[in-house]
């Protein structure tokens, strides 16, 4: 979280304007002109900081057209935190111009209330039953469940657990991908890890990304309150974005409790490989898969070898790497809905990479990426299922039904 002028200036001054980010910024590579590249966002942030330019609508547009994918950050020779400068500029814009009305309703009205979120989930599920809301802004949506995951499933009570973890169930697992949640419970149970369900609610990333620091902090504080008292050795997530956000709580809120909570957070694949340990799969999963690296997992949390190690522990499964597996899928939270055309272009490139592998299924570690990838594959008439890493491991343990994809691709 960059907040003081000094912190912002430090990062702006580190930018040598070398332009190296033109090689990797997915938005720039689609749009082609300088305002859409990381270098420009850094320079604009600097100009706004020094009062050379106002926090205008146009500046806001340019800052909003950033995926926060950190491709630039990983590539930058000077380690400029472009993503944090963008977040800072967005937050300053909100301070001056307020939130757009639609964002305000969603961020301040719905996200902070678990009840209202549940209601939204139910309405979405009902709409889908009536044949509506199968897609939104050109993007195919997953099936919503009328009841949230935490109302339907309870972790088993283990006799002699080796460790106890709190499982932070993110919104997407809560309302759409129950199969991921089931797999997390099963995989942890198989490996003698006691699971406690943390009172699930929005992690706050949508608010932070929109520049709404107030709501982001409100949500973070609430989650810290409910996580800090759980007697859990670690806190695990199945969502790359939630994971990165929870790890930010220390910086976002300050204070011992937030730091202590943040330090205990681990992505499920990291936890399985490094902390809890995991048994190899037992049942063959004869599938050729390719793996997409979520931005918030690979660059956000440094987790990229771990999911592959898990896949390597599944008998019968073959991993074929796609070219540029770590380029953003283009969803980037609400970006996909606010910038549908641009998001689709970035997605198309990703689908092309997937196709090149001839894999019969796609694996990833983030439900948002999953939504985007599934939509992109369906859009091209490809019948490839998308799984979360843990779902395949659960399948191999024999604890998940094997809904295998058709034999041939296309």
């Amino acid at each position: 979280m960059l907040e003081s002028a000094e912190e912002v200036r430090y990062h702006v001054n580190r930018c040598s304007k070398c332009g190296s980010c033109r090689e990797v910024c997915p938005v720039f590579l689609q749009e082609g002109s300088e305002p859409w590249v990381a270098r420009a966002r850094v320079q604009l942030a600097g100009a706004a900081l020094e009062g050379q330019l106002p926090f205008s609508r146009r500046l806001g547009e340019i800052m909003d057209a950033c995926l926060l994918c950190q491709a630039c950050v990983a590539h930058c020779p000077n380690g400029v935190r472009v993503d944090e400068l963008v977040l800072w500029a967005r937050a300053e814009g909100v301070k001056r111009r307020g939130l757009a009305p639609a964002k305000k309703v969603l961020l301040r009205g719905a996200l902070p209330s678990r009840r209202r979120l549940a209601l939204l989930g139910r309405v979405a599920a009902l709409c889908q039953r009536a044949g509506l809301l199968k897609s939104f802004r050109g993007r195919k949506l997953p099936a919503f469940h009328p009841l949230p995951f935490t109302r339907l499933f309870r972790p088993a009570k283990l006799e002699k657990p080796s460790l106890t973890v709190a499982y932070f169930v993110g919104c997407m697992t809560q309302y759409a991908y129950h199969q991921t949640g089931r797999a997390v419970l099963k995989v942890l149970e198989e490996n003698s890890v006691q699971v406690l369900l943390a009172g699930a609610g929005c992690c706050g990333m949508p608010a932070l990304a929109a520049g709404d620091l107030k709501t982001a902090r409100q949500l973070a504080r609430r989650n810290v309150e409910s996580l800090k008292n759980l007697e859990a050795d670690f806190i695990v997530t199945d969502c790359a974005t939630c994971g990165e956000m929870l790890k930010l709580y220390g910086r976002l809120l300050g204070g011992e409790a937030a730091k202590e909570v943040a330090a205990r957070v681990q992505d499920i694949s990291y936890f399985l490989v490094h902390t809890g340990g995991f048994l190899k799969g037992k049942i063959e999963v004869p599938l050729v898969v390719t793996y997409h690296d979520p931005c918030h997992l690979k660059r956000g949390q440094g987790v990229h070898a771990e999911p592959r190690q898990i896949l390597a522990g599944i008998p019968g499964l073959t991993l074929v790497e796609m070219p540029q597996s770590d380029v953003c899928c283009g969803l980037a939270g609400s970006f996909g809905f606010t910038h549908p055309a641009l998001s689709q272009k970035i997605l198309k490139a990703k689908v092309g990479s997937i196709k090149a592998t001839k894999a019969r299924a796609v694996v990833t570690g983030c439900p948002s990426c999953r939504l985007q990838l599934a939509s992109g594959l369906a859009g091209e008439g490809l019948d490839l299922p998308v799984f979360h890493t843990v779902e395949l491991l659960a399948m191999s343990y024999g604890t998940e039904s094997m809904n295998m994809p058709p034999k041939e691709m296309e």
Partner: protein
Amino acid sequence: MKKGKNEKIVNNLRRLLGHGKVLSSPEDLFCYSYDGTFLYGAPAVVVRPATTREVAAVLKLASAEGIPVVPRGAGTGLSGGAVPVEGSIVLDLTAMDRILEIDTADMLAVVEPGVVTARLHRAAESAGLFYPPDPSSSNVSTIGGNIAECAGGPRGLKYGVTRDYVLGLEVVLAGGEVVVCGGRTVKNASGYDLTGLFVGSEGTLGVVTRAVLRLIPRPETRQTLRADFKAIEQAAEAITAVLGAGVVPSALEIMDDVTIRCVENYLRIGLPLDVEAILLIEVDGPAAALSEQARLIAALCEEHGAVRVRVAQTKEEEAELWRARKAVSPAVVQVKPTKISEDATVPRSRVPALIRAIKEIARKYRLTIAIFGHAGDGNLHPNLLVDKSDPDEMARAEAAIEEIFKAALALGGTLSGEHGIGLLKAPFLELEYGGPGVATMRKIKETLDPYGILNPGKIFGGS
């Protein structure tokens, strides 16, 4: 430009090119106010033409109205060539980015100016050919920018620089006339060498809209060695011996003690801290000949006092050796936030003398200067590591740069090996060419650009 007139011009440009290709909001303009240097300048409008005809239309309008035009590629230039003149039209050429032809029979490529250098590298490679000019910025720099600056790179010693690969050009002149010069032949003795004139002209004589580039057969393989020397003079003697033995390395890079320390602090890969110079030497060619060449180079380095020579045996070892050199840029900025990268160049035999002179200048002005670069062709990159928010240090840096230029010239060298003169070195041009030399260049400029609208202020200063 006045506000009313500005609006009129913007509208005219929109009519010529369409709305999507003209940018005029203050925020968009700000994004075109810089290049790879620390300079800024505000343009009045930015256009992104897609064809030669559109470029010509813009230039015609600009010359009729007397508005300066600043051609621009990726904006990675290190001498300020693409930094806009106040009130100018920036001509962003990156939308013209087609590779039109890779001709394997005539061994050439025809490209538009906005093609990114590395894309041409890949296209040539997949046709079994090779486009050697390799500025370190090649993953983002454009061919147009490379031609305008006559870009070089580590391969300069063996393969030459951009100039050596430009067979022909299509150029739009200031008034909108389209000139085609050179052609598709390696030999061309017909009339003045206009192609050669436009190469390195930094956008001051015309706008390159198409280029015919020479390709050569791809070398079969390469091999890399590293040699560490206690004294810079020993490294220089080793270089002379290697070249004297008839081996021309495809790269011959030097890192001085300051650079080595920066890289070691950054990577911690066990670089020696008790030596004055590391040489990285790469040879390429037929696999059969290479190991013999590598052995010979290793022997010559040892004979001239290398304390250690390592020859990469595998691809991984090769990457490991190059890792130190590739990390120089990020490594040196860990020391201070701002780096000013110069490219003073001297005849090869004077490299040790220039390094000694720069070290003396660093001491005199209490500055940290990391020296690295292409020792094989005498092209050094002294990088002044400073903090631009420290005015006293910046003043000392400015004085030091002037002395470095003077030292390079006194050693029979040039102000710039590959970055061009731009704005940053304009005040020193006369030191190198003298009055009559600069006057001759000015005459060429005035003949080709009588209205003085093409990138004014660059090379000559004082717009």
